[in-house]
């Protein structure tokens, strides 16, 4: 039983980090007022690019990771062009991006499908990793798990303790006021979308190179949508997004653990858990947030100067 729990906790970060990176990226998007429903597609492109670059470069992990970031950056630049520059409907554009990414990776992905990759490996910290219980949980994760801690802290510092971050939030909260105060709305939103999108791409790349260690068509399986839901659960705060990601990572990590010990739970019903729990969490948020969801004031609205609302 202790083994089961230790293993479960030790496997949680691998599943939590993709959700965490994606929801942190989405928080940067949405704090600037852009609702990015394309997350699932951006993650998919990140996962695909990560594996392709990793394989083609002969297994250079840094390049694979950079490829994922670049893919996230590129797809979100397309999305940003649509919703920020051209001011198109953010919901429709986001959904279109998801299917665009799914179709594109499905069409060109065949040569790289189902080729196992080594990807991220556990860091060996010598005696520390050998410490019973704690060694396995805290000192045997991969580099990205450790890197994500300062990353989240940095994003939080930026959003809530810096002048540019304050301007970004102002753009998402009240673009008219921010515009009047001299903040460049388009530039700020474009920047927020591509930087956040790069993180979402990284999330996908990590998913492929660390969690599944393989590229399969449509392999994100709704994790981008779960990240969109996590942002709502987190009330658009990075700290709470980490908690939510750990919760969902824990649920996802539980599935292979239960299968490994051979508990007689039907596997397909088990696989429903992340989706059903997401729905339950959204319901819970709906029940408790009578006073407002904490969403940025101008979330999902295109900004046109002097436009009548």
């Amino acid at each position: 039983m202790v083994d089961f729990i230790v293993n479960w906790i030790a496997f949680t970060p691998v599943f939590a980090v993709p959700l965490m990176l994606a929801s942190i990226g989405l928080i940067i998007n949405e704090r600037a007022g852009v609702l990015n429903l394309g997350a699932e597609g951006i993650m998919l492109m990140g996962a695909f690019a990560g594996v392709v670059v990793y394989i083609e470069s002969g297994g250079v992990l840094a390049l694979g990771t950079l490829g994922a970031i670049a893919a996230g950056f590129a797809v979100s630049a397309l999305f940003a062009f649509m919703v920020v520059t051209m001011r198109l409907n953010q919901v429709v554009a986001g959904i279109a991006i998801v299917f665009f990414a799914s179709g594109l990776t499905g069409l060109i992905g065949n040569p790289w499908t189902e080729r196992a990759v080594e990807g991220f490996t556990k860091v060996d910290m010598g005696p520390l990793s050998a410490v019973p219980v704690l060694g396995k949980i805290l000192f045997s994760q991969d580099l990205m798990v450790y890197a994500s801690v300062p990353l989240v802290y940095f994003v939080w510092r930026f959003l809530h303790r810096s002048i540019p971050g304050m301007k970004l939030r102002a753009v998402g909260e009240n673009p008219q006021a921010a515009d009047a105060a001299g903040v460049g709305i388009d530039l700020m939103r474009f920047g927020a979308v591509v930087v956040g999108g790069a993180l979402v791409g990284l999330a996908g790349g990590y998913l492929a190179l660390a969690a599944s260690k393989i590229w399969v068509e449509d392999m994100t399986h709704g994790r981008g949508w779960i990240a969109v839901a996590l942002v709502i659960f987190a009330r658009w705060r990075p700290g709470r997004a980490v908690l939510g990601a750990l919760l969902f990572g824990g649920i996802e990590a539980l599935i292979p653990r239960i299968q490994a010990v051979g508990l007689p739970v039907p596997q397909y019903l088990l696989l429903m858990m992340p989706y059903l729990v997401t729905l339950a969490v959204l319901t819970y948020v709906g029940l408790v947030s009578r006073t407002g969801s904490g969403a940025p004031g101008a979330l999902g609205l295109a900004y046109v100067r002097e436009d009548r609302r």
Partner: protein
Amino acid sequence: MRASTAISVGRVNLEVRQGIALWLHGLIVLASIVVGLGISVLLLVISGIDVSNVFEEFIVLTFFDSAGLADVLLEWAPLILVGLSAAVAFRVQFWNIGIEGQFVWGAIGTTVVMIYDIGPAWAQIYLMFLGGIIGGMAWIAVPAVLRLRLGVNEIISTLLLNYVAALFVLNQLFGAWQDPAAVYYKTAQFADHQRLPQIGWGQIHVGLFIALAAAALVWLVTERSRFGAYMKLVGSNPRMALASGIPVALTVLAAVMLSGALSGLGGYLVASGQEYALTIYVAIGYGFSGIVIAFLSRNNPAAVVVVSFLMAGLYVAGESIQVFYGLPEALIGLIQAIIVICVVGSDFFVRYRVRWMR
């Protein structure tokens, strides 16, 4: 430069149009579709397809050949229903992205009649019809209530339920409902009296008339009934609708349930008219197609009928291109996505007048 309602992006100046002539609007949308098709053709060329053949071999064989046209008409029926389903929900600003899940549950509701042999044999095809509608409605009821009572975002909830529905089908097909005689995972075949009768041209069955009747009915409801007028008001301005005493929540609920019923009916058509079984692939691609059709038709039921016919042509031509050149299924989805992105983009030129500054 006019000071009001103008934006400058670099050297480009955007002016918000006060109104747009119908011909210009149509021209812009048409141009965007042409651009989308152009990009798609370019993609086919990159994938190593001889495009000069595509027109002759596939477009002509799809629309101007008896067997090809029969395939298009067969595919048309479920596409009308998913297009209507999306259009009805979008009209009341309910983003039903879970059409695929409701479609699956329509097929499950149909199959249940076969599995448990419900009712007398002559009535089963009608019970399956009801089962399809109930399945689709049941699957959308949860997101509908969550949205109306608790404000839970329906985009996320309907989408997540797609995965749950697909996993449920897998659970049944790899378990209780599996046909031990089948080579791949599906239920046992429906008996003859559980199948929609064919009309004697290709595989076309009476489901096509069901779909067309549904389109006529939805047109009557949305364009000629009080409920349809409520839907329009709720969709365009829910606050004003509420203030003027319209039962907003009830209107949304009714429209959304209608949307679920239409998707479920699509599942019934495919299960009872084409596959004669519940399979893993019963709903694949229909969800996004419904959204695309509704979007391109601007949620107009009459336009849905036309656009879904063209979409059926894309399906059939796409399928033969796939088989012929050994390309993956994702091809059709990608072409749809590219066309949608281009048509969404056309909205920009509809709303703004673009001027270059020197």
